[in-house]
């Protein structure tokens, strides 16, 4: 009987606070993750939006190709009309 009483007291005074403490810690950790995840989602959305202009790189590529081709033609013309140094 005495041991049972002691067990009840231990259950109420030690086990219950420890369980509450541990569960509270888990809840705090889970709660702290939510803002970080929301911030990551916001940043990912902004990064995705920033990459909307990536498709224009194809246009840039075409323009660079045309520009270099023009430079090559111009260089070829200069090569014809100008004398070499040696």
């Amino acid at each position, binding site marked *: *009987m005495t041991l*049972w*009483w002691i*067990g*009840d007291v231990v*259950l*109420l005074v030690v*086990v*219950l606070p420890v*369980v*509450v403490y541990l*569960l*509270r810690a*888990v*809840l705090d950790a*889970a*709660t702290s*993750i*939510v803002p970080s*995840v*929301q911030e*990551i*989602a916001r940043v*990912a*959305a902004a*990064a*995705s939006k920033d*990459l*909307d202009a*990536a*498709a224009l*790189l*194809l246009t*840039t*590529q075409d323009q*660079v*190709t045309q*520009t*270099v081709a023009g*430079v*090559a033609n111009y*260089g070829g013309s*200069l*090569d014809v*009309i*100008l*004398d*070499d*140094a*040696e």
Partner: protein
Amino acid sequence: MAPVLAFMAVGALTALAVVLIVVALVVYLVAVIVQLRKITGGLDEVIGHVGEIVQKSAPVNDVVTTINEQLDAGVDLLEGLLVKKAGMTDAVGLVEGLYAGAGAAGFRKFPESTEVKAPRIGEVYTQGTLTLARLGREAPIALGNPAGFPLRNVEGGSLAARLLYPEARQSKPASMPRSPVIGTDAPVQYEQRDDIGKPRKRLPARR
């Protein structure tokens, strides 16, 4: 009777302790589940955006690589043309004159250009420069020449252009032979043919 009450009391206390522990577990675990559901929703949103990022950035590597290759080819072409036309020394001098300090970096395609001492831009007058001047182009060289811009003088620039014409016009004569005036009112009428307006001459018939 007392032992029975004692047993009931200790049993009730045990049950109360167990109920309290179970209630604590339920309350906190439900709260944790709610938070984990929020985290799952947020991660789903993140995964969606990351997928968009991966999809949008997929061709970037190839496109940028192609652009770099094209630009490298253009730089190699221009460097090669400059070195071919101006010579290595003058080419380094031209680059140094346009962009101070750039001559020390040399040309990418010509590693030996870093060892060339850039001449003063005022001393760099290549055939190509003169050819450009003859073509009427304003070669943007010699910006650093302390004596001023050697190729294009804004105030007296017409002299350089006039030198392109024959010698007779460069001496600025008081009067030069005028161009002939033609037409019926011309002061000089050329001799007219006599047969104009007369019957056509008949040639003897051939046999």
